[in-house]
Structure formats: structure tokens, C-alpha cells
């Protein structure tokens, strides 16, 4: 693996490298060099399996981190290739020509994170949220409580209680002190 990291260093600007386990490594590369390094890893280094492509919203830094998780069948090593892209007008090159199922992950990221992948097939189709017109919901600044208060309504006659207060009032009213749970060995 050290040799491979050296090779990657020689090919692209390696922003970061981390080893989580013997069979799991992470590298961070520049956005412009991603396709090139993925093609090299797939065609020449044996990382032929794309396990997934996902994103992490780094709201504080104004970035998205994309993770391309690759796997090498001969060395049994997972390599996560990370790339940081801007959160505003988030856009990334498509990898559907490298892996035929890449478009699925790109469609998901477009819907749930609002990351665009121009040229990716069916990227604007809906995945799980049919007719969704709000902010992409997996973004960290999507306010789930505000959305549900605005969209749904409480059924009349229902109320919510603080469980601790409710139990004190309804169940333990006749006990002056808080109940003590006794275990077998006490």
C-alpha cells in the first residue's frame, strides 16, 4: 500500500492520506484530478469495485466531501478517495463511464444533497422523494422540525407530555420518594 500511495503522490496532488485499518485507507485529492486517479486505480491498480459514492456535508467549511469507496479484489484492500467540492453551486464530474452503476449514486446525491453531475444519465429523475420542492433534505441546514411543523398538523385531541413529569404525576403520585429499582444482587 505504501508503494501505491507513493505512486499516487507522484501522479496527483495528494492533499491528505490516512490509514484507518490495514484494509482501509483514505486519500484526499483535488477535484480536477479525481477522474484521472479513479481511472488509473481502476485500470492499472486493480481497484475495480466501486462499493459506493457518497457525500458528507461540511457545513462549517462550506464544502461537501465526496467519498468514492473502491475495493481491490486481489489485495483485499478498501481505498476511499475523498474530494472536497464547494457547497454553493455544488457540481462534480460524472463517473458513469467508469462504472455502469455510478449514475445511481449521482442521482441520489443530486436529490438528497443538491450536488449536480452534468452528463450523468437520469441524474434529474427522482429517487425516493417524488415531487420534492424543498431544500435537498440531507443538507445539514435543512430544518426538519420547521418543515414538519409547516407540512403536517397535530391530530386534534392529542398532546405530548414530558415522560418524567408524566410518570411522576400519574404513576408515582402516591410514593413520597422516587422509586428505587432493586436488582437481584442488591
Amino acid at each position, binding site marked *: 500500500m505504501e508503494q501505491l500511495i507513493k505512486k499516487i503522490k507522484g501522479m496527483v496532488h495528494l492533499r491528505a492520506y490516512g490509514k484507518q485499518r490495514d484494509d482501509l485507507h483514505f486519500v484526499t485529492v483535488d477535484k480536477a484530478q479525481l477522474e484521472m486517479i479513479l481511472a488509473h486505480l481502476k485500470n492499472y491498480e486493480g481497484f475495480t469495485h466501486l*462499493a*459506493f459514492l457518497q457525500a458528507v456535508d461540511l457545513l462549517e467549511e462550506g464544502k461537501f466531501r465526496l467519498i468514492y469507496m473502491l475495493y481491490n479484489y486481489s489485495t483485499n484492500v478498501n481505498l476511499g478517495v475523498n474530494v472536497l467540492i464547494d457547497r454553493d453551486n455544488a457540481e462534480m464530474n460524472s463517473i458513469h463511464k467508469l462504472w455502469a452503476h455510478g449514475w445511481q449514486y449521482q442521482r441520489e446525491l443530486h436529490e438528497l444533497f443538491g450536488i449536480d453531475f452534468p452528463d450523468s444519465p437520469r441524474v434529474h429523475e427522482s429517487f425516493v422523494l417524488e415531487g420534492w420542492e424543498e431544500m435537498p433534505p440531507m443538507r445539514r441546514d435543512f430544518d*426538519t422540525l420547521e418543515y414538519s411543523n409547516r407540512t403536517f398538523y397535530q391530530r386534534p385531541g392529542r398532546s405530548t407530555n414530558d415522560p418524567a413529569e408524566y410518570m411522576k404525576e400519574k404513576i408515582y403520585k402516591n410514593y413520597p420518594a422516587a422509586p428505587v429499582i432493586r436488582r437481584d444482587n442488591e
Partner: protein
Amino acid sequence: MSNLSSSKYRGYEADRSKYPEMKNGKAVIDLDSHKYTKIWQGPQHPGVTGNMSVELIVNGDEIVWAKTHVGYLHRAFEKLMERRKYIQCFPLVCRICVPEPDTNEYCVSAAMEDLAGITVPEKAQWLRTLNLEMSRIGSYLMWLGGQAGSLGMGAIAQWTVGMRDFWLDLFEEMTGGRVYHMYMIPGGVRKDLPDGFKERARDLIIRTRRLLSDVENTFISNALVKSRLQGLGIITPEMVDEFGIVGPNARAAGRGYDIRINNPYVKYDELDVKMITSTVGDAYARAQLRYNDLHQSLDLVSEILDRMPEEGAIQAEMPNLVNWKIPPGQTYVKAESTRGEHGFYMVSDGSEKPRRVFARGASYTHAISVLEKLAVNISISDLAGLMVSLHTCPPEIER
């Protein structure tokens, strides 16, 4: 066009000269021409493998175009986990796969342990292995019923699903829950085995084998099953990398990849797990492979029971899980489910809630990219058999 071989097998060669006309490698389908009909298989249909649907365009009874629709089960588990403490994630993750929830529990526990640097005690590792292998048996029995049911053999489905219920009884003894167990938690497992569990498990293994010999006679060796499944949905070795195919679907196409062997976890490195492969790649090869894998899982449970230590801690020394903070980092943990590589990618930012959790299910590609490709040119009556033979599970697509 590997699927054409299925037609060929039945002595029928599809005439591709007229319907559909191909332009630039794509079928030209004009619904107004009255030569095609659009129909939906699902979301409410006995021939689908859960709450998903396949939009089909058929010419006669032959599928010429297919598209998978999901979204009926989306419960935003990944988003919910970002707003919950680590220990609160467990009632959510098991629901990502109903027939085999333990793989989720294991992966999430192991991801947290990996990030926090926690070593799980020996006995807990054995108990986890037992739990995982039992859940594989439960899932395979359900699949076997589904595959038989998709070909109209409802009786076999009732046998195997009935037998699965006895395995759920064992789960109930072991974990307290039948379908969802929440047995594995960070640092180990919740409980040790109850008294007499091993004897009852060994007895059930014998009963399951007895049932499987009936299933072999009525299903695996059945000429009708062979004629329906042989040549159906052929996965070529080239497709494995191209579509990210894993698990029995990939092994039936000749790719020797089983995470229990290639990247062993819990106690699989000490067990005698054999790589079962085939080179045919069709639905019948996958059925045979899963049947053999089920037998192997029974062997493994038997071996685990023999080697299970009597004494030992089942939990590592853990901080208070209610306020547990995990050091910043990212990890990916995977396990071999009955459908293939099942993994969790987890990111921690040092707080008491995960920053990002992503569940990678094998069906994500099998039920969409692969199914849409393999469904073309098969008969509509074979679609249900094809879906089950890919072992598609919608909840792990939508999470």
C-alpha cells in the same frame, strides 16, 4: 445479449428485426403504435420482493424496457441518525433489512468500535458470529420460499418460512426479539446464551437439514424449476465489476469474493468457511449456490456452538453510552449478508452524535441497474423469479 439464451433454451428465438427497432443502441418504443403496452409490476403485487415497483413496457408477453421505482419505504434513517446519540441509532438500523437485521447491527457497532478504538472480548465475538450466521440462515430460508413462490410453488414457501419461524424462536431466546434483535451493541452483546440453547439449536439444525432434503427433491432437482430458471438473468463475469455486483450474484458468475473469507471479521478467520462459486451465472446457478451456502451456514452454526467459550466477558469496558463521544474520523465496515456486501460508512466529528452514516446495501445496484438490464427480453412471467434470484431487498435501497 445474454438474455436471449433463455429464449433459445425454450426453443423460441425472438425476432429482433422489427420489435423494438434499435437506433444508436437504444430501442425505439412508440406507445402510440399499439405494438407495446405499459404496465406496472408493484408496489402491490405478489411478484415483487417488497415495496418497490418495476415499470415495464411489454411487447406481447416479452419485456422490452424496464425501470425500477423506489421510494415507498424511505424513512430517512440516515438523517434521523445524524440527530440521535450513538446508542439511539440501534433501534433504527435493524429496520434497514427485515429478514436479516443483524448485519446492520454488527456493522454499526463495529464502525463505532473502530472509530473509538474499542476491542470486543473473545466470547462476545463468538456470540456475534453465531448471531450473524443464524440471521443468514433465516434470510436464506425466506429467500428459498420467495424463489419457490415466484414460480408458483407456494407449498415450499410455507415449509421454509415455517422453518424460519423456529429459527426466530431461537432468536427470541437469545435476544428477546424475534424479527428485530438489537442484540449487538458497542463493546459486545447484550446477553449470554440461555441454558439449553445449544441443544435446542443443534436439534433445529437437524430438523432444518431434513426439510432441506425435501426442498432439494421438490425444488432444486425439479425439472420445472430448471426449465424456468436455467438461462434466466445471466450475469456475465464482465458485469460484476461494471455494475458493482456482490455476494451470491457475483459468486455465481465466477467471482470468488466472500467478505467472511477475503476480509474476515468477528471469528470468521478461525472458522472453516469455504468459497462456493459457480461459472454459469444464471438464476438456477444462483439458486443452487444459495442452497449450498445455506448448508454451509448450518455447518458453521454447528461449529460455532462447539467452539463457543463457556466463560468470558460479553461486554468491553465502556464509557457511559448515553453521553458517549467518539473521536473524529471516518470508517467503513462491511459484512457478508446473504445478498452480498453490506456496509456502513460512518463519520464522527467528535460530538455525541454521528456526523454522517451511510448504509451500503447490496440491492442498491442489484435491484436497479442490474435488474433493469436483465429484465429486458425476458417473459413477463419470469420477472418475479428474476427479482427473487437477484435477492432484491427494497429497504436497503431507500434507507
